[in-house]
C-alpha cells in the first residue's frame, strides 16, 4: 500500500506547463532521490507534495484519502518540507524552534530540542544565538531540526546539502539516514549522483516536468 500516490498530476502556472502527467507511488520508508537539470520541475514537484501548490489536473492520495479531503494544515503538519535556502525568521534560533510548538498551542519540549541539536552537532547554547550570526551550514541544520521536531511521516528535502561544506554535509546525511531508519519516508532533490546512490532505494530522473525514469536500487 502506497503512503503517497500521485495520479496523473499536471501543474500549469501562467499558461506554462511545469509538471506534466506525473504518476508515482511512494511507499512508507522509501528514500527517494530526485535528480534532473535546473528547471526540470523538481522543486515544484516537492512544493506540490507539501501542498504549497495544488495540481491543475490529477490527484494526490495520502493514506488513502485525496488531498482535497485533508485540511491543508493537517497535510503540512504530516509532511515536512525543507527549502534549498533555509529561511529562519525572527531574531533568535529559539524563536524558530518554538514556532512548530506555538502553532500547536503546546509548550516547547526542551529535551526533544536538545536531543536534535546534539544530533546535528549543535550545542544547546545555540538556542539563544542570533539568526543573523549563523553560518549557512548552521542555518540549514536549524531549519532541518525545525522540520522534524514533530516527526513528519514524509520529509521533503530540496537540495539541503548543496551549499554545505564536507563536514556539514556528512552531519546532515547521517541524520537523514537515521530518520529514514526510524521510518520517515524521504524525498530529496540532489545534484550529487554519489549521494543519491549511497542512501536511496529509488532514483527518479526528471526532465521538462516529467518523470523520465524510476530506478529501484535495493
Amino acid at each position, binding site marked *: 500500500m502506497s503512503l503517497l500516490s500521485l495520479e496523473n498530476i499536471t501543474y500549469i502556472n501562467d499558461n506554462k506547463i511545469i509538471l506534466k502527467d506525473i504518476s508515482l507511488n511512494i511507499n512508507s520508508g522509501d528514500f527517494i532521490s530526485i535528480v534532473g537539470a535546473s528547471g526540470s520541475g523538481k522543486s515544484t514537484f516537492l512544493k506540490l507534495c507539501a501542498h*504549497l501548490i495544488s495540481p491543475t489536473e490529477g490527484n494526490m492520495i495520502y493514506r488513502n484519502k485525496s488531498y482535497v479531503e485533508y485540511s*491543508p494544515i493537517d497535510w503540512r503538519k504530516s509532511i*515536512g*518540507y525543507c*527549502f534549498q535556502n533555509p*529561511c529562519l*525568521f525572527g531574531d533568535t534560533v529559539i524563536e524558530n524552534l518554538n*514556532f512548530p510548538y506555538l*502553532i500547536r498551542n503546546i509548550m516547547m519540549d526542551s529535551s526533544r530540542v536538545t536531543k536534535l541539536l546534539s544530533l546535528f552537532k549543535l550545542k544547546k547554547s545555540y538556542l539563544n544565538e542570533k539568526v543573523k550570526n549563523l553560518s549557512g551550514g548552521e542555518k540549514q541544520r536549524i531549519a532541518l531540526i525545525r522540520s522534524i521536531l514533530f516527526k513528519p511521516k514524509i520529509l521533503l528535502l530540496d537540495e539541503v546539502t548543496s551549499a554545505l561544506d564536507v563536514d556539514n554535509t556528512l552531519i546532515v546525511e547521517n541524520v537523514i539516514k537515521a530518520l529514514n531508519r526510524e521510518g520517515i519516508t524521504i524525498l530529496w532533490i540532489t545534484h550529487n549522483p554519489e549521494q543519491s546512490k549511497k542512501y536511496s532505494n529509488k532514483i527518479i530522473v526528471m526532465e521538462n516536468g516529467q518523470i523520465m525514469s524510476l530506478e529501484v536500487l535495493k
Partner: protein
Amino acid sequence: MNGGADISISSMLVSSLLVMVSLFFTYFQKLNLEKEIIIGVIRAVVQLVVVGYLLNYIFGLKSPIFTTFLLSFMIFNASYNAAKRNKGAKNGLLISFISIALGASITISILVFSGIIKYEAYQIIPIGGMIISNSMVALGLCFKQMNSAFKDKREEVQTKLSLGADILPSSIDIIRDSIKTGMMPTIDSTKTLGIVSLPGMMTGLILAGTSPVSAIKYQIIVTFMLLSTTAICSFIACYMCYRNFFNKRKQLI
C-alpha cells in the same frame, strides 16, 4: 488682521500680491511654471469660495440624516482613494470602506457621547474630514506595505505554511508591520506637536481669535481622535486584507 474679525476684500487683494512674488521667481529662474501657478491660484480661489458657501448652507441645515449622508459620502471617497493603493486585491474598496467607517464611527461616537462635540454639521463635518482624511492616508500606507511585504517575505510565509501554520500565524509579522506603517506618521506628528509644527486646526483657531490655551485643548482632542481612528482602521483593514494573499487551500497566491 485683528483677532477673529473678517478679512476685508482690499486686504485679500493686497495679499494676492504674494502670488506675484512666486511668479517673479518663476519668471526670473525660467522655471516655466507661470501658467501652472496662475491656474492653481484661480482653482484654489474658486474651489474655496464654492466650498465656503456650500458649508455655510450645509451648516445651516440642522438635519442629522443629511450630516450622516455627507459623512458617508466623504468615507466613500476616502475609501476609493485608499483602495487604489490596494490594486489587484479582492474587495479593496469594501475593506477600506468598512475600516474607515468603523474607525470614524467609533471615534465620533466617543466624542459625541462624552459631550465634547455635538452631532451637528458645523462640528461633525470638519472633525469627520480630519479623521477620514487621516484614515485614508494610513490605509494607503498599510496597503502599500502589505503588498510589498508579501512579495519580499514570500519565502518566510511559505516556510511557516510548510511547518503547518495557518495563514494568520504565517502572516502575523507582515500584518503587524503594515499596521505600524499606517500608524507611524500620526504617532510621529503627535510626538512633534507644538515643537516642530503648530497644527492647522490650532493655528486656525488662534487666527480666528481663540486664546492659545483654549486652542490647545481642541488640538489635544484632535490628536487623540486621530490616533484612535488610525489605530482602529489600520487594524481592521490589515486583518481583513491579508486573507487576499491566500487561496482557499491556504496557499500563498
